[in-house]
């Protein structure tokens, strides 16, 4: 094996090991399993959002709708049908996929800022459906008593999820699987095409890609993961409510994605930063989301090509300046 290949294999091993280590350390660093749970559940949703925003270049304000539909789907199967945990989660993921396909189908007809407006508007459709059909969703009060059954298939019981530690383990494994799946997706020819669409949509179309189908598929994957996250959250809290489907949720997921730089590794870092900041600040400054607003303004102004690109060029600049001083000394 030549040197280059060894180095690449080394980098890949580090990349693959970093995530499990981070997931093991997470509950030790955070004050408890409850927060660690929030972080990994949001991280699954952010993975879905990063696939759309970071890799396909589609900024979607519809993520909250997929998340909320996932929560309601999980709730319906868990309470009315008495389904098992895998069934509840699959129902959530399926409804997330369906709502993402609907939002995606209409929104991808336009590009640029027009597209973003459409995702926001169609996300409101799902909010108002949930708000208006109280019989199904519980309206303002939400759906309560969503169970968290043990993980079992048929009569085989694998894991009791009552304790926060057990549920964290379960969610962390799901996140890791989702992370590996999305990693595989973005490294496949399919993912390369998504990146091509982000970089130059016209060219991607011109070389014969069915751009619309690729975008729709990206929405479907994104909706699946976001719906799964919503379902996990509903089972975790025991409730599914309007706060899970409103624009604030879309805004939260998108802000986490952007703070994570729209990258796969950032999918854990973004929610971690956001949740640690919120729990740290919410006691001393209840209006802390204002700070998130300022962070978004700053990223927009100073890192218009994304957070990592901005940090990288700032670092380059700093190193050049450091280098210059070195030379003058």
């Amino acid at each position, binding site marked *: 094996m030549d040197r280059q290949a060894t180095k690449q294999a080394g980098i890949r091993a580090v990349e693959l090991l970093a995530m499990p280590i981070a997931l093991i350390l997470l509950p030790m660093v955070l004050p408890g399993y409850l927060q660690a749970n929030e972080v990994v559940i949001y991280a699954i949703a952010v993975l879905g959002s990063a696939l759309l925003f970071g890799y396909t270049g589609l*900024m979607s304000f519809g993520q909250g709708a997929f998340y909320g539909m996932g929560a309601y789907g999980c709730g319906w199967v868990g309470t009315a049908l008495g389904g098992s945990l895998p069934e509840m989660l699959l129902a959530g993921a399926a409804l997330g996929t369906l709502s993402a396909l609907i939002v995606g189908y*209409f929104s991808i*007809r*336009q590009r*640029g*800022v*027009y597209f*973003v*407006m*459409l995702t*926001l*508007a*169609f996300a*409101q*459709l799902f909010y*108002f*459906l949930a*708000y*208006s*059909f109280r019989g199904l969703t519980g309206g303002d009060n939400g759906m309560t008593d969503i169970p968290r059954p043990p993980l079992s298939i048929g009569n085989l019981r694998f894991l009791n999820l009552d304790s926060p530690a057990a549920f964290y383990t379960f969610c962390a494994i799901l996140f890791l699987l989702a992370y590996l799946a999305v990693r595989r997706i973005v490294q496949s020819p399919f993912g390369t095409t998504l990146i091509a669409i982000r970089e130059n949509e016209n060219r991607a179309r011109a070389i014969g890609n069915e751009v619309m189908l690729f975008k729709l598929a990206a929405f479907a994957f994104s909706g699946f993961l976001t719906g799964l996250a919503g379902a996990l959250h509903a089972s975790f809290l025991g409730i599914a409510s309007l706060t899970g489907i409103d*624009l*604030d949720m879309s*805004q939260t997921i998108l802000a986490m994605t*952007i703070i994570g730089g729209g990258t796969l590794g950032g999918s854990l870092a973004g929610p971690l930063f956001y949740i640690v900041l919120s729990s740290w600040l919410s006691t001393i400054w209840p*209006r802390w*989301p*204002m700070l*998130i*607003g*300022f*962070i*978004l*303004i*700053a*990223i*927009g*102004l100073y*890192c*218009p*090509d994304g957070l990592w690109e901005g940090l990288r060029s700032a670092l380059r600049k700093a190193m050049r300046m450091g280098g210059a001083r070195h030379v003058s000394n």
Partner: protein
Amino acid sequence: MNLYLLQIMNGVGIGMLYFLIAVGLSVIFGLLRFVNFAHGAFFMMGAYLAYTVSVSFNWGFWAALLVVPPVTFLLAILLEQTLLRHAYHLPHTAQILLTFGLSMVLQELAIVIWGTDGLHMPTPGALAGVVQWGSFIYPKYRLFVTGFTAVLAALLWWLLEGTRLGSLVRAGSEYGDMMALLGYDTRKVFMYVFGLGVALAALSGALAAPLRGVEPFMGLTGLGIAFVVVVIGGMGSFPGALIGGLLVGILQSVLSSAWPEMAQPVIYICMAVILIARPHGLMGRG
């Protein structure tokens, strides 16, 4: 029958308020290809300012109508000069981040000042009560809103079609670069149009306050509605914003008696249909 007539009249009034929110967003987009995601926050700010002036200061509703537009106009120009003008050359995702961040900041600011609970804004005394024609009765305030916004829409139409500023705006949205080459200060035109658009959204908030109350999350709701209106009517089109606003308002009002669950969702379904049938909106070019 009277019920539906009543709902259509309500719908026209609400639709005109939607038009006022959406028209600024639409005309600014026509000029700059810039979409201000903080536009809804100004709708909210208008409602809160009106509440403060008329209830907290006890100056009355008419003072609020006089104070809100100029104050928000100046605030908008200040923001445009210090912050937003740096965003015009940025990629659209950065513009959205910037303006959406601004919208979060304004929303939190409103909560810091006025709290999260909804506030009730009373109908002005002279417009309380109803008017009656035969068996038909209608609230005076709603009648006033319809009349006032109709006059305002006519004035705006004249401003865009009959004045020098209007011809600069229309020329700017067709051939912005050419105008700059001819020596017009397009930045100044942008600045005034931006201020005007924001002031109209704020005025809409002030007029809507006695009808719907005032709460910090009305900004996001207003933003969502404005997007639907411009998508239906066509981005960048003044008549489009008017027709879109009226259509959305009337649909919502009529369905709120016929099929209340669908009163809100239907406007998004209407938007979806228009996107398929006329991708550039009812009055859009393209």
